[in-house]
Each structure stands twice: as structure tokens, then as C-alpha cells.
């Protein structure tokens, strides 16, 4: 068997995981600086230029911190939980096409790690599996706050997953495929070809984003770690890098959610206008930059929303998920089905 494609795959996996980790480090800095600007503070500005090396200092500190294992905790699960959270978060990003098919050093490289036929199923499955990390963490810590945080978190994530899945089904209906590369290919050209416009998916896009915020446990839906009620929620008992891994998992999940929203609704790596005579690396560079820019905007939005909106109460949160988003997602699906059946939305 020829091992070269496998080497390319492995190289892509390693590079992308490192880019994601770098993105996490950068986002922690952005989060702290932007929150500081919103609140008329300065934020971390001592380590390196503009405090840019702060994440590195944080990482070293996390690595050097004492490791505590709560007495009476379930050791195997307690240690497994951050690994589950981290691995599932990394895996979900693999199906997102972050660029076109390029020529690199004489090899043809498709800029997506996993070009699966059921790619979106893989992504949804991986994000769903993230619940296990949180439930295990909450249960294995043998602490009241962790247990309540884990329970709340799992209930919230499964509730919003329904709306997330149903919103995504409408896109599959419009494009007739589950393969992310094909969904992106169908949105080439002008920006009105994007699913959010050409597929009449504005409502679906909003539902997807709201459910995505709840799915990644971000404000205004960060009930699992509502610090005024539950201390730190499911990771109350975690210290050192084990805590940091939950943190990284959350940020990677945010990036995955942004990337999925961009892929499904906003044209993926297509810049939104015909690229004309551009070919080769100028075109590919533009497309990769377009993808990065769109995902970057949504990452910024995550931070912006977090420091602008107050937190929901738990019953309001469950009400929103079950009584508003779920029926709306169903209605959106029914409307999309009708539009596709009567050829208003062209394939």
C-alpha cells in the first residue's frame, strides 16, 4: 500500500491541531483584552508586546501547578474526563474544509482533514460526545458543585442539540448532501449564493448560532459554570493542566461551531464574490484568508456577546431551548421542505 496519502493526512492532522491550539492561546488573549476594553480596563499588557505572550506564561503556570485529586473521587473517570472533552473537541473540527484543493510541493492536497460522505454527521456526533467529558467530570469529582454543574450542563447540551441538528437538517435539504466540501462547493460565486440567502436559511442560521452558543456553554448560556451559584461548575475540582484542558476544549468547540456555521450557511472558504482570473496560490490564499476572516469574526462575536449580555436563569434557558428554538427549528424545516419541493430553492 502507498503510504504517502497517509503521511499527508497525518501532516494535516498535526498542523491543524497545532493551529487550533495556537488559536486557543490567541483567543484567551483576545478574550481578556476585549473584555478589558469593554469594561474600560487595560487587561494583560505586561508579558511581551501588548501582552501577547500572556498565554505562554499562563500555559507554563498551568503545567507547574500542583495536581490535586479529590479524596473519594473516581480516579479513572476523573482523569479520563478532560481527555474525552479535549479529544472530541479536536475531532469535530476535522470535517471542516478550510481551503480548496491546492498544489503544495508537487502534491495535490485537499485542505480538509476528513472528507467524509457523512461529514456533518461526524461533526455533530463528535460535538455530542463532548457531553460525556462534562458528565464524567461532574460525577467523578464527588463534589456537590461539580455534580450539579455536570447535570445542568448535560441537560442544557442535549436540549440545544435538538435545535442545532434540526437547523442543520434544513441545510442538508437545500444542498442534498452531508459532505461539507459539497455544501461549500454549492455556495461558490457571489455571496447571494450562500445558503443563508439562496437557501432561505436566515432563521436556520440564527437558530444554529443560538444553539451553538448553548452547546459550547458560552454566555448567555453558561449556566453549567454560573460562578455565583455553582463555583466553577463541573471543573470545580480540577487543577493544573487538567483544568486547562477543559478550557482548551471549550475554545476549540467555539472555533468548531464558528467554522461549522461558516461552512453550512456563509459559503465556507468562498470569499463571496467571483474570483475571476485568479488561479493558483493567489486564489487559494484569498480563499483561506476568507475562511479565517469569517471564523475570526464569529470568534470575536463569541467574546463580544459574552461581555455584553447577562446570564439566563435556568428555567428560562430550558424554556428557550424546548419551547422556542425546537418548534422554530421544526417550522424552519417544514418551510424549507416546501420551498425545495416547489423548486423555489434551486439545487
Amino acid at each position, binding site marked *: 500500500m502507498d503510504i504517502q496519502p497517509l503521511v499527508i493526512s497525518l501532516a494535516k492532522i498535526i498542523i491543524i491541531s497545532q493551529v487550533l491550539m495556537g488559536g486557543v492561546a490567541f483567543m484567551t488573549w483576545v478574550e481578556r483584552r476585549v473584555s478589558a476594553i469593554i469594561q474600560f480596563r487595560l487587561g494583560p499588557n505586561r508579558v511581551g508586546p501588548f501582552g501577547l505572550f500572556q498565554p505562554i506564561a499562563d500555559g507554563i503556570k498551568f503545567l507547574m501547578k500542583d495536581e490535586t485529586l479529590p479524596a473519594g473521587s473516581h480516579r479513572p473517570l476523573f482523569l479520563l474526563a478532560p481527555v474525552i472533552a479535549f479529544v472530541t473537541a479536536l475531532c469535530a473540527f476535522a470535517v471542516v474544509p478550510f481551503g480548496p484543493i491546492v498544489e503544495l510541493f508537487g502534491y495535490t492536497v485537499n485542505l480538509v482533514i476528513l472528507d467524509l460522505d457523512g461529514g456533518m454527521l461526524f461533526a455533530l456526533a463528535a460535538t455530542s460526545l463532548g457531553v460525556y467529558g462534562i458528565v464524567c467530570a461532574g460525577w467523578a469529582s464527588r463534589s456537590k458543585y461539580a455534580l450539579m454543574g455536570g447535570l445542568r450542563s448535560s441537560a442544557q447540551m442535549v436540549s440545544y*442539540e435538538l435545535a442545532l441538528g434540526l437547523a442543520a437538517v434544513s441545510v442538508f435539504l437545500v444542498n442534498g448532501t452531508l459532505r461539507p466540501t459539497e455544501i461549500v462547493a454549492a455556495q461558490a460565486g457571489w455571496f447571494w449564493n450562500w445558503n443563508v440567502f439562496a437557501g432561505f436559511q436566515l432563521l436556520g442560521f440564527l437558530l444554529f448560532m443560538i444553539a451553538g452558543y448553548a452547546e459550547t456553554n458560552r454566555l448567555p448560556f453558561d449556566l453549567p459554570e454560573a460562578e455565583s451559584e455553582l463555583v466553577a461548575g463541573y471543573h470545580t475540582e480540577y487543577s493544573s493542566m487538567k483544568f486547562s484542558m477543559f478550557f482548551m476544549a471549550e475554545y476549540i468547540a467555539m472555533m468548531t461551531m464558528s467554522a461549522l456555521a461558516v461552512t453550512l450557511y456563509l459559503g465556507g472558504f468562498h470569499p463571496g464574490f467571483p474570483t475571476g482570473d485568479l488561479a493558483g496560490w493567489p486564489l487559494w490564499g484569498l480563499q483561506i484568508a476568507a475562511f479565517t476572516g469569517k471564523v475570526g469574526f464569529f470568534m470575536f462575536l463569541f467574546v463580544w456577546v459574552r461581555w455584553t449580555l447577562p446570564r439566563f436563569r435556568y428555567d428560562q434557558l430550558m424554556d428557550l431551548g424546548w419551547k422556542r428554538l425546537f418548534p422554530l427549528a421544526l417550522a424552519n424545516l417544514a418551510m424549507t421542505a416546501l420551498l425545495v419541493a416547489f423548486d423555489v430553492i434551486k439545487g
Partner: protein
Amino acid sequence: MLSFSPISLGFQKLVAESRLTVVLLISWSVVMAAGLMFLTHLLPKLFNRAKVKRIDESPYECGMKPYRRVEKHRFSVHFYLVAMLFILFDIEAAFLFPWAVTFRDFAADKLFVLGEMAVFLGILVVGFAYVWKRGALEWE
């Protein structure tokens, strides 16, 4: 030095689709996670003196001794109910995936296939309305 010949995109797609990439992806993520866990286990032992005291290992309770064991802590039955409802509705949503992907292929029978799904969704909506009416979605 290794030298590889350029290969056709078709074959590369084949490999990208193969389960091997999934295995590679999961193993690499596990290796990274395990590496971090190992480092965070090892480094403090190398550079700090071990000074984790017994009190550090007790469950967090704002600095007090835990006044009640977590096993005796009660939580709402609603969490169980939500999990049950999720399984029901998520299975129904899972049935929508293949339908959504193949819908355009039924060019001639589109309306019939649409009608079938309308019946399915109708049953789902009736079930949802029943659950709502019975108050399973209320949180106090």
C-alpha cells in the same frame, strides 16, 4: 530522505474517506491529550516539593468542611425527564437526515415523499404538544 511520487486526487480522496484517517485523527488527539496529562503530572513533581495536603483533597465547599456527602445530595427528576425526551426527539431527528439528503432525488414523487414526511413530522408535533401540555417541559 523519503521521496514520494505525486498521486491522483481520486486515490487521495479514497484515503481521506477511509477509516484510517479517522483512526489517525483520534490517535493523534489522544496522544496530545495524554501528553498534556503526563506533563502536568510530572513537572510539578520535578520542580515543586510535593505539598498537597489532605485538606486540599477534600471536595470544595467554600473553605468549610463539607457538611453533607454528595451521595446524599438530591437533584431534580427533571434532568432525567429531559434526557428521556432528548432520546425520543433526537431519534426522530436522526430519521430526518437520510430523508433530507435524498429528497431531491425523488423528482417525480416529490410531493408524495413530502407528504410522507409531513405525516411523520405531524406525529412528532403531536407528541411534542402532548409533552408540553403534560408539563414535562416546566421547570420550577
